[in-house]
Every structure is written in structure tokens, then in C-alpha cells.
């Protein structure tokens, strides 16, 4: 995934989390306008999703002719039919499983590979280390469209098109720059003395990696994992191009994109389908948002 690095705001990597421990600021602005504006903005942010959620429980002929907000006035005609239809006829359950099949390995594999590489970049000296790392930073900016055609041909030659293995490798390749960058920042921030004392005790790099660095890096690894998982779960383009829409392998994003294009009638089904596709990421996000947020702020937290 080619996202620019989001390093901690101050120049040196800050090791401490900055969410708590600061004194609560006084309500120096006139409180009421502040609250009003903030609450209004928040409501505005929530309304679109709410509209979709409500629509997904309304029958089609109502959705086509009246706005979703009218659902709150009698007669209340809520229904589960949309969800039933969409699960029965549109292979949504299958797509869900496909999405999992894509996202989980596409998360685990890049992190594993990145962890080893990041450690080497952080704590091993070798020629061209800085140049290689710079190159990785540069690659963060490359739009993945630039890689589509050659990778497509490469896959075709190896019969990887339409296969899960192909898309795992692709997501790994695309996700490595960001993962290495993030982990390398984190590993690099670990104190030197840790490694020195371990070296004195006779530990080699392998031991240091598995016994020292990994356990301390759990928050960073967790943030990265969530980030990568959400990214691959929500991806459309990579799946569309390398995997295709064969119902046997299509993830939810592809299935729903197809539905958007083909359903003229049946917008009510689209609402249910979209919501089902959001269910898992929302759960992951809500349960683990702490880690996600930390990850975004350079994930530099001491355990």
C-alpha cells in the first residue's frame, strides 16, 4: 500500500503515547457555540451511514419513492427481506469468506517479512543500507496503477491470475514499504542499552529478535496488522484486476461493485449488501481502534 509515512509530529521519534496524562484544557472558547458546532459536525458525519442503515431495513418500493428519514414516522414498515435476499441470491456469504481468505494472509505475510527486514534496517549495519531504505521511502509514493500491467502479465505467465496466492503476493509487495517503514521506526526507537546488555549476555541477533524485540513490539505489530487488514479487506482495484469476479474467489468489494453496476431495480439490496460488507471492518475497528489510532501516530509506544 503506497501511503506516505506518518511519522510522529516532533522531530525525534517520541516513545511515549500522548493520549493521556496531559492536563485537561480549560473551556476557553464560549462553551455553548463550541459544543453546538462540534455536535453538529459529528451528526453530519454520522448521517450518511445512518441513512444507509435505515434504508437497508426498508422494502424496495419505499426506498425508491421516499427518503429514509420517513421511516421513523408510522406506519413502520421495517423488514429483514433485503438481507435475506442478498444473502441468498448474491453469494454474499461466499464473498465474505473470500474476503477473509484474502485479507488474513495478506496481513500476516507482509508483517512477517517486514519485521525481519525492519530489524535488519534498524540494527544491522550493511553497505547500501541507507540507500535501500531511501528507495523504500520513495516507493511509498508510487501509485499502484503503475504496476498493474506488468504484474498482470507476470501473473498470467505463472498462472497466478485468479488465484489467491497471486493476490497474497501482490498485497505483500504493495504493503511492504509502509510496513517496513513503520516497524523500522519503532524498532529503531528501542533503547540501545537493551541490545548492549543482551549482547554481553551472549545473545545473537536471532535471540534478540525473538526474545527482545518482538515482545516489545506488540503494539506496533498490532497497529500494523489492523491497518493492513482493513486495507486489504476494503481493497477493490487489486482484487478486480488480479483476481477477477469469479464468484468462487470474489471478495465483497468486487461483488458489491458489480451489484452497483448491474442493479437498477434493487437498490434496496445494495444497501443491505453494503452494510454487510462494512460489518466486519467496523467491528474490528471499534474493538481495536486504540491500536489503529496509535499505529497512525507512528505506533511508537513502550509496552
Amino acid at each position, binding site marked *: 500500500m503506497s501511503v506516505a509515512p506518518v511519522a510522529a509530529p516532533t522531530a525525534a521519534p517520541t516513545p511515549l503515547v500522548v493520549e493521556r496524562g496531559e492536563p485537561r484544557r480549560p473551556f476557553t472558547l464560549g462553551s455553548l457555540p463550541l459544543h453546538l458546532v462540534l455536535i453538529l459536525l459529528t451528526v453530519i458525519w454520522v448521517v450518511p*451511514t445512518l441513512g444507509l442503515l435505515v434504508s437497508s431495513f426498508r422494502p424496495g418500493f419505499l426506498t425508491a419513492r421516499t427518503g429514509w428519514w420517513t421511516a421513523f414516522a408510522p406506519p413502520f414498515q421495517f423488514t429483514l427481506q433485503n438481507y435475506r435476499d442478498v444473502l441468498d441470491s448474491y453469494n454474499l456469504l461466499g464473498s465474505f469468506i473470500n474476503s477473509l481468505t484474502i485479507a488474513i494472509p495478506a496481513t500476516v505475510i507482509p508483517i512477517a517479512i517486514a519485521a525481519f527486514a525492519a530489524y535488519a534496517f534498524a540494527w544491522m549495519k550493511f553497505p547500501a543500507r541507507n540507500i535501500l531504505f531511501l528507495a523504500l521511502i520513495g516507493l511509498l509514493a508510487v501509485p499502484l496503477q503503475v504496476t498493474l500491467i506488468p504484474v498482470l502479465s507476470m501473473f498470467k505467465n505463472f498462472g497466478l491470475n485468479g488465484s489467491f496466492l497471486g493476490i497474497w503476493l501482490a498485497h505483500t509487495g504493495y504493503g511492504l514499504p509502509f510496513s517496513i517503514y513503520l516497524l523500522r521506526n519503532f524498532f529503531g526507537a528501542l533503547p540501545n542499552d537493551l541490545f548492549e546488555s543482551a549482547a554481553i549476555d551472549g545473545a545473537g541477533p536471532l535471540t534478540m529478535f525473538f526474545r527482545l524485540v518482538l515482545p516489545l513490539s506488540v503494539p506496533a505489530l498490532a497497529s500494523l496488522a489492523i491497518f493492513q487488514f482493513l486495507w486489504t479487506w476494503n481493497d477493490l482495484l487489486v482484487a478486480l484486476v488480479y483476481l477477477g469476479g469469479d464468484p468462487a474467489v470474489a471478495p465483497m468489494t468486487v461483488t458489491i461493485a458489480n451489484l452497483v453496476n448491474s442493479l437498477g431495480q434493487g437498490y434496496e439490496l445494495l444497501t443491505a449488501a453494503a452494510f454487510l460488507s462494512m460489518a466486519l471492518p467496523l467491528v474490528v475497528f471499534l474493538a481495536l481502534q486504540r491500536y489503529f489510532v496509535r499505529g497512525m501516530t507512528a505506533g511508537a509506544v513502550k509496552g
Partner: protein
Amino acid sequence: MDIVRITFLLGAVIGVPAVLVAYIVGADRLIRLLPARLQPAFRPWVWVGPALILVGLFLVYPVVATLWISVLSTDGHQFVGLGNYATVLGDNSVLIAIRNNIYWLVLYTGLVLVFGLILAVLADRVPYEGPVKSLIFMPMAISFVAAGVIWKFMYSYQPAIATQTGTLNAVVTSVFRQQPIAWLIDHRTNNLALIIAAAWIWTGFAMVITSAALKGIPGELLEAARVDGATETQVFFRMIIPLLAPTLTVIGTTLVIFALKAFDIVYVMTNGNYDTDVMARRMYGELFNYGFRVGRASAIAVLLLIAVIPVLIFNLRRFQFQESIR
């Protein structure tokens, strides 16, 4: 459920990392056979090897290959030099796509940064900051496809004589007493409509990072200024903003890259019609709707790459700066 598929999945999730570890451990055993002096020379390469190979295969080689394909003919068999670029840049619809990408660059980045900042600053001063952050950040968890669906409903259009089904048009007709607007079709609004949908998702990202940076500003600094008689506005513009500048820059570069790569929202909501096309979507079209014109598609991709180079250089410089004070 497929037994085969599950085994396969387990194989990938557990097996691949296991193979990787085995590779590292195994290689280490071999390296230990070397004299101690030479070990540090070989070991790093074992560790970064897999990463370098994959990055090379999926990022480096394809970029070079795309550069090469872009100077070949449409079917990929003859050398045509800059011919594809000439065709592409001479095509009015591509110029429109470029213009739209510039809209995205400016408006999308601007909207997200501004709203992210405002929300971060406001939320910082209320006790219910947590839930607010979560609610605004939540759209980040959903796919652009789902967001496209959500906003298609928001922008729904019915003629003035009918009841409105879209949220925005309902507000426009009842609160503002205006004619409903066909947001996605009307050239005056459609690009902005798409940009707003994308901004809705990413403002949470900007907000969260800005918020963390905001909390990193020592309270005493601002207090001292207030005690010295500075107004809130002055504190905001003369102290907070400059202190946040590095963070805002980082966020900004991420957004700029995204604006150049925007695909999903446009593909799902308008498919590039009504003059809303963007380069990334157009490239997809060249490949898959207009007959697999690899030469032209690659030319568009290279143009995208060129547009990104300033950001690339900026990132590199910033990284080097950070390293030098490490």
C-alpha cells in the same frame, strides 16, 4: 465450506511465516559456520532478502516495465517513442481527467486538512472527545465501494415535482426552498460531490493525527501566551498552527498521493462520466473498456508517476532530515 480451502488458508497464514522463520533460522545456522568476522556482512542480506525480492518484483520491475510499455504501440509490438503521450495528452477527455485530478489535489486535501484541524481543536476541549473521534474516524473502516453506495443515496435526485429521496436534496428543497440538484450529473457540482464523499472518509484520519500532535504541544506554552494577553485567535494562528505545521505537512503529502490515485469512488459513483473522470479511472478504462490499449494506459500511469515525483522527493528530504537529527 471447502476443506481444501481451509487447509490452504491455514497453510498460508501459519505456514508462510513459518517457512520464513525456518529460512531465517536455517540461514543463520549456515552463517554461523563462517568466521565471526564475516557473519555481520552476510546476515543482513538474509534478513532483508525476501522483502527486497518482493518489492523488486511488485514495485520496482513493474514501474520500469510500465515505462517501457508506454513507449510501445497500442498492441505492444512497435516502438513509438512519445506517440502514446501525444495521443493521450491530445485527447480532450484525458485533459479533463487531469483537470479533475487538480481539483482533487486542491479541494480534497484542503477540505480534509481544514476539517481535520477544526475537529481536532474543538474535540480537544470537550470531555466527550473520545466518542467524537471514534464517530468521525469510523468511515475509515469502510471500503470506498460501500462509501460510494452511501453517498449515491445521499445525492439521489428526483425531479422537483416528486418527493425527494436523497438526503441532500431533501434539505435543499425543504430547508433552503430551492430546486433539487442532480449532484452527480450537474457539471457545476459533480466533482465536488465526489470529493466530499472521499473527504468524508479521510477527515477522521487527519483529525486523529492532528489531535495527537495537538496534545504534544506543551500546555504551559499556550498558557504563558494567554497570560501575556494573547487572544484565542492569536494563540491559534500564531502558535498552534506553526507548531502543527510538520504534522499537517505529513498528512498533506498522504492526501496528495491519494488525490492522484483516486479510483474507487469515481468508478463506483459515476464511472468517470459527466466530466468527472480521473486519471486512475481513465487508465482502468483504457485497459478494460476501450480494448486493452496497453500503450496508452501505461502512458497515463507514467503521467501519474511523474505527478507524484515532487511528493516522493519531499518525503525523501524529510526522512533524511529526521535521520540527521536522530
